[in-house]
C-alpha cells in the first residue's frame, strides 16, 4: 500500500512537471485537482510542495484556489519553501479583482508560519481599508489568524481600536467579523466591551445581519447591562419579532437574552416564559430532527424553571413513529416532566403504548417513565401499577424485565403495592434473560416475599441453577434475598441458605460475592439476632429516581451544556475565545470557592481541597509512595478500624459519582485497595479502602461515603504525620469527579 501511494505521488510529480501538461490549462487543472483529491483522502502529498507552488502562478482562478488550499494544509511542514509563495500572494493581494485580493489575504493569513508574518502585515493593514467589503471582512479575520501566531503585532499595530472603529462599517458581514475578531483578540481582557451606544446600534441594525450574525449579536448583548428596567423593556420590544424567526438559532439566542434582560423584573420574567412557549412549540413541529432535538433539550431546561408551562401542551411531546430514537427518548423525558394531575392519565396511556416500540431503548424508557410518574404523583400510582402489570402478559423479554425493575423502584415508595405484583412474579422469571430484571425480581421477593407461599421455592429453583448463572447482580441479590427470607421463614430456607453460602464461599471466584457471603456467614455464626438487624434493617429510603436536576444549567442556555446535560466546566478546556457563557458561569464558580472556604473554616488545618485546587502548593506536600501489593484480611481491617484513632473526617463536593467499579479500578492503579463496598444501586455508596506506605509500612484505612453530590471521607492511620499525604494522594486519584 505505502509503496503504491509513493509511486502515485511520484507519478503526480512528473505530471505536474511535464511541460506539455503545463501548457494545457485544462489538463494542468485536472492534475492539481487530483492532488487535492489525494489530500482529502488523507494521503500525504506534501512532497509535491514546490511543484504546487509553481502551479499557483496561474491566471486560472480555480487552480489558484486549489493550490492555496494545499498550501494552508502543508505550509507548516515546509516553512522554508512556503516563503516562495509569498511573492505570488502579495501580488494577488493587490490584484484589481476584489475576489482575488480577498482570496490572497485569506490564504496568506492561513499559512500559520512565524517567518512570513513580516510579509503579511502590510497587506492586511491595507486590506482593512479596502473599498471592497469582501476584502475588508477577510482582512478582519486575517487579523485574528495573525493574533494566534503573533499577538504582539496585533497589539503593536493597535488593530483592536481599528476594529472598534470598523464596527460602523456599512457592510453587516464586516461588522460581524469585527465582533468575532474583537472577542478573540481581547479575550484576556474579557472580550469586546458592549457600551450602551454599541448595544443600541447593534439592536437597530439587527435585521441587516445574516441569521448567523443575528445569533452572534444576540449572544454578545448578554454582556450588556441595561441602565434601568425601562431600557430593558425597550430592548424586549425591539427584538420581539426575532422570536418568530425561522432559524432556531436566532430564536434560542433571543430567548436567552430575554431571560437575561428581565432577571431583575420578576413579573416580566415570568411573562417571558409564556411569550416563548408558542415559538418553541412551532419550532418543534418542523425542521430537521437534529435541531428538534436541541429544541427539546432547551424546553427541558425551561421546565426546570417553570414546571407547569407546558402542562396543557403535553401532546406536543408524543413522539412520531419516524422520529429517530434520540428524539423519541428526549420526548419521553419531557412527558415525564410535564405530567401532573390534570394530564397524567393521558400520558400514561400513551406511554404504555410506547412500551412496545421496536427500539428496545425507547420501549424500556417508556416503562421507566411510567414508574417516574407514579412516584411523582401519588394519586395515580395505582393506575400506573395496573398499566405496568398489564404489560407482563405480552411476554416480551425486555418489556417484562423493565416492568419488574420499575416495580422494584415503585415499591420503595409505595410498599403496599407489593400485593399486586407478588402473584405475578413466578411466571416472569422464566421469560427474563437480563440481569437487572431478574435481580430486581429477587430483590422484591427478599423484601416482601413472606406473604407469598411459594417465594422460598422460587428462590430455591434459582439457587439450584446458580452454577449456570452468569450475572453477578443476580447472584448478589439472590444472596441478600435468601438471607432476608431466612429470617422470615427459617424452616423452609435454612437448608438452601446453607447451600448457597457454601457455593459462594467455596466455588465462586468473584471477590465481591465471596466477601459478602463470608460476611453473612460470620454474622450468622456470631450473633443471629444482630445479623437479622443488619440484614433486614430498614433501608427503604426513597430518593427520586431522576437525581440530577437540570436547573443549574439554565444559566448556560443555548450552549452545548444544555445538550450534554453537563456544566461546561466538564467538557470545555479551551477558554479562548472568551465566550459569554464563561461570564455567566463565574458567579457559580465563585460559589464553589465559597463552599471551599466554608469547608476550610470548619477545619482550617485540613483544607486539602484548597491545596489540591492550587497546583503550586501541591508540590509543598510531598508525594506518598504506597506499597503496590498491600495485604490485609477483612478481620485485620476490622481490628485496625476499631483500634486506630480518627485523624481526619471531612466532606468534599463531588461533580458526579461514577460507578464503583470505575472507582475501584482507578484506585487500584494508584495502589489503594478496596476491601468492601456497597452495590452500585444503593442510594448511599460506601467503600472501605486500604493503603500501606511502601517503606514505613504504615497503614491507612479510609471509609468513603458518597451520596448526592457529596463525599464524606473518614481516615484512620498508624502514623498521623503521613495522613495528609495519603489523603491528598486519594483525592488526586479521584479528582476527575470532584
Amino acid at each position: 500500500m505505502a509503496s503504491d501511494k509513493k509511486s502515485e505521488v511520484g507519478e503526480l510529480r512528473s505530471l505536474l512537471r511535464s511541460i506539455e501538461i503545463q501548457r494545457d490549462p485544462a489538463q494542468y487543472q485536472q492534475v492539481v485537482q487530483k492532488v487535492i483529491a489525494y489530500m482529502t483522502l488523507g494521503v500525504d502529498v506534501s512532497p509535491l510542495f514546490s511543484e504546487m507552488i509553481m502551479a499557483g502562478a496561474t491566471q486560472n482562478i480555480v487552480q489558484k484556489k486549489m493550490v492555496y488550499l494545499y498550501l494552508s494544509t502543508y505550509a507548516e511542514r515546509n516553512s522554508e519553501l512556503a516563503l516562495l509563495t509569498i511573492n505570488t500572494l502579495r501580488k494577488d493581494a493587490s490584484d484589481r479583482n476584489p475576489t482575488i485580493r480577498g482570496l490572497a489575504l485569506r490564504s496568506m493569513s492561513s499559512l500559520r508560519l512565524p517567518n512570513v508574518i513580516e510579509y503579511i502585515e502590510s497587506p492586511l493593514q491595507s486590506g482593512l481599508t479596502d473599498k471592497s467589503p469582501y476584502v475588508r471582512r477577510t482582512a478582519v479575520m486575517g487579523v485574528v489568524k495573525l493574533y494566534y501566531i503573533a499577538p504582539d503585532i496585533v497589539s503593536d499595530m493597535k488593530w483592536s481600536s481599528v476594529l472598534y472603529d470598523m464596527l460602523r462599517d456599512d457592510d453587516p458581514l464586516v461588522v460581524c467579523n469585527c465582533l468575532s475578531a474583537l472577542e478573540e483578540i481581547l479575550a484576556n481582557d474579557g472580550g469586546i466591551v458592549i457600551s450602551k451606544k454599541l448595544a443600541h446600534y447593534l439592536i437597530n441594525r439587527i435585521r441587516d445581519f445574516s441569521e448567523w450574525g443575528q445569533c452572534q449579536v444576540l449572544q454578545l448583548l448578554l454582556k450588556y447591562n441595561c441602565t434601568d428596567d425601562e431600557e430593558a423593556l425597550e430592548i424586549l420590544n425591539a427584538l420581539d419579532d426575532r422570536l418568530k424567526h425561522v432559524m432556531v438559532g436566532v430564536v434560542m439566542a433571543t430567548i436567552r437574552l430575554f431571560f437575561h434582560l428581565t432577571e431583575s423584573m420578576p413579573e416580566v420574567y415570568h411573562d417571558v416564559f409564556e411569550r416563548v412557549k408558542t415559538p418553541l412549540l412551532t419550532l418543534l413541529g418542523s425542521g430537521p430532527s437534529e435541531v428538534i432535538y436541541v429544541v427539546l433539550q432547551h424546553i427541558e431546561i425551561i421546565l426546570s424553571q417553570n414546571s407547569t408551562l407546558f402542562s396543557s401542551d403535553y401532546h406536543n411531546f408524543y413522539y412520531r413513529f419516524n422520529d429517530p430514537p434520540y428524539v423519541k427518548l428526549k420526548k419521553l423525558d419531557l412527558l415525564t416532566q410535564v405530567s401532573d394531575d390534570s394530564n397524567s392519565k393521558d400520558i400514561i396511556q400513551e406511554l404504555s403504548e410506547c412500551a412496545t416500540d421496536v427500539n428496545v431503548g425507547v420501549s424500556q424508557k417508556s416503562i421507566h417513565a411510567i414508574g417516574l410518574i407514579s412516584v411523582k404523583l401519588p394519586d395515580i400510582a395505582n393506575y400506573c401499577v395496573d398499566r405496568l402489570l398489564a404489560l407482563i402478559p405480552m411476554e416480551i423479554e425486555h418489556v417484562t424485565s423493565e416492568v419488574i425493575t420499575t416495580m422494584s423502584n415503585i415499591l420503595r415508595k409505595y410498599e403496599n403495592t407489593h400485593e399486586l405484583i407478588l402473584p405475578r412474579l413466578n411466571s416472569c422469571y422464566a421469560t427474563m434473560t437480563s440481569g437487572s430484571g431478574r435481580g430486581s425480581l429477587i430483590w422484591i421477593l427478599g423484601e416482601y416475599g413472606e406473604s407469598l407461599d411459594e417465594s422460598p421455592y422460587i428462590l430455591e429453583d434459582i439457587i439450584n441453577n446458580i452454577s449456570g448463572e452468569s450475572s453477578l447482580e443476580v447472584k448478589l441479590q439472590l444472596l441478600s434475598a435468601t438471607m432476608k427470607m431466612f429470617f422470615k421463614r427459617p424452616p423452609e430456607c435454612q437448608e438452601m441458605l446453607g447451600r448457597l453460602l457454601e457455593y459462594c464461599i467455596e466455588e465462586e471466584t468473584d471477590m465481591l460475592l465471596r466477601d459478602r457471603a463470608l460476611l453473612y456467614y460470620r454474622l450468622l455464626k456470631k450473633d443471629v439476632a444482630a445479623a437479622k438487624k443488619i440484614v433486614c434493617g430498614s433501608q427503604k429510603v426513597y430518593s427520586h429516581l431522576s437525581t440530577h436536576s437540570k436547573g443549574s444549567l439554565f444559566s448556560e442556555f443555548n450552549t452545548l451544556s444544555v445538550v450534554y446535560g453537563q456544566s461546561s466546566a466538564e467538557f470545555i478546556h479551551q477558554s479562548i475565545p472568551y465566550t459569554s457563557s464563561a461570564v455567566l458561569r463565574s458567579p457559580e464558580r465563585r460559589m464553589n470557592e465559597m463552599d471551599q472556604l466554608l469547608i476550610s473554616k470548619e477545619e482550617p488545618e485540613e483544607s486539602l481541597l484548597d491545596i489540591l485546587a492550587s497546583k503550586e502548593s501541591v508540590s509543598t506536600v510531598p508525594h506518598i509512595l504506597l506499597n503496590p501489593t498491600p495485604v490485609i484480611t477483612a478481620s485485620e481491617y476490622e481490628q485496625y478500624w476499631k483500634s486506630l484513632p480518627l485523624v481526619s473526617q471531612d466532606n468534599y463536593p463531588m461533580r458526579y459519582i461514577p460507578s464503583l467499579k470505575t472507582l475501584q479500578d482507578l484506585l487500584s492503579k494508584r495502589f489503594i485497595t478496596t476491601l468492601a463496598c456497597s452495590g452500585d444501586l444503593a442510594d448511599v455508596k460506601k467503600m472501605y479502602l486500604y493503603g500501606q506506605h511502601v517503606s514505613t509500612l504504615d497503614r491507612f484505612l479510609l471509609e468513603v461515603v458518597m451520596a448526592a453530590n457529596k463525599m464524606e471521607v473518614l481516615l484512620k492511620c498508624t502514623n498521623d504525620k503521613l495522613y495528609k499525604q495519603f489523603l491528598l494522594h486519594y483525592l488526586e486519584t479521584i479528582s476527575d469527579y470532584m
Partner: protein
Amino acid sequence: MFSQLFVLSSRGDILVFRDYRGDVDKDTPDIFFKYIKKWKEENGAYPPPAINQDKTHFLYVRRNNLYFVGVTKFNVAPACALEVLGRVAQLCKDYCGVLNEESLRLNFILVYELLDEVLDFGYPQQTNTEILKSYVSNQPVGVVVGSDSSGTKRTLPSTAANKPIAVSLDSMKDQKYEIFVDLLERLTVLVASNGHTLRSHIDGSLVMRSFLGGNAEVHLGLNTDLVIGREERMVRGTGSVVLEDCSFHEKANLTDFDRDRNLSIGAQDGEFTVMKYRVAASDILNPIPFRIFTNIEDGQFPRSLRITVRIKCEMPVKSSGTNIVVRIPVPKTTISVSSEPLGAGSSTEYREPDKMYIWKLKKLEGGNEEQLVMKLNLSEVTKATKKEVNSVSMEFEIPMYICSGLQIRFLRIFEKGRPVSPYRWVRYITHSDSYVFRV
C-alpha cells in the same frame, strides 16, 4: 465556530475535509465515524447530533446518507451550529443539483470553493446561494438532469427542480427562466384502536426554488380570510383557514400582510423556505384523508393468523392519494406470510429481518377502498402474539391537495419594477409525516 468541517459518505469515506483553525488533530473523521459505528452497533440507532469525544465536540447532521460534521472545542450555540451544517448541505444541493455521494465526488472542488467562502476561521460568512455565485468559479457537473420539457407542457416530473443552479453568465443563458413554488403540508395523525383521532396536526411550508437569475421579486397572495394565532382569532373571528402559528423568511416583505395577506420576496436562486406554519388540525382533518381498519383472527390451522387490513380514502372523489405504503408489523414468531391476490397497482413485500409486511398501492381515489388479507404461519402462539401487531402506519402523497385549505391566490414576478412572465410552477402537495393507526 467550527475548527473543522468535513463530509463523510455512509461508509465513512472522506468526501471533503476543511481545516479552519488548525487547533484540532487531523484524524477527527476517523474518530467520528468509529463513534457512530459503535453507537449504532450498541443502540441500533444514530446517536444524538452532538458528540463529546475527549473534549472535542462533533456536531453533525445526516442528509441523504451523508454526514456533514463540524468540529469544535468551544461551548457553541448548538442550534445555530447545526443550522450552519444544514445550510452547507443545502448549498451543496443547490450547486450540485442533487445531494448524494456521487454528486459530491464529481463536484468536490466546487464544494471546497463553497466551504472556503461559507466559513472563515470557523465563523459563518456568506451563506446565500445567490450571492455566493460571484465567488464560485467551478462549473457544477449535474448528475441527474431534469427531463427537457417544452414550455407548453402543463406538468413536470417532480424531479424537474433537482438541477444545479447556473453559476456563470454563459450557463445563465441556457438556464430556463422559471420558478417552482411548492406548498407542502405534512400530516401527523394518530388514531386509537377505537377509531378516535388521538392527535392530528399539519406542519406546512411554502418553498420556492427559483431559477430566475436572482433579480426577480416575487409577489404572492394567500387566502384573504386567513387567521393566524389564537389572539387573532379573537379579533378577526374564524376564517376559512386558521394557522396556529407561522414564521417567515428573513427577507420577506410583510408590509401588506396584515391587511390583505399579500407578501413579496426577492427571489434569490436556489431553494429557500418563504414561510412555515403549524395547524392544529382536529377540526380541519375531519374526516382524515385515509382510514385503516385492521382485523386479526385465528387462521384455519393451528398456529396461524389471518389479518385483514382495509384502507379507505375519505377525500372528495376528485382527489386521490399516490405512492401509498402501508406497514403492518407481524409477530416475531412468524415463519411465513402470504396474501390473497390484489388488484392492479397493488403489491406486497415481506421484510423478514424487520418482521414487517409492506403493502404498496400506486393510487387510491377518493371514496374508494382496498383490502389486503394476510395469512401468517407461526412457530408459536402465545397470549401476546396478536398484540405484537400493535400499530399500522402509512405513507402517502396527495398531489394537488392541501388539507388546511391554504391557497396561493396569485403569483406575480417583477424584475426591476416591471412585470415579467417566467414559467411558473405552483404545486400543492400533502405528505404523510407520521400517520399511525393503533390496532
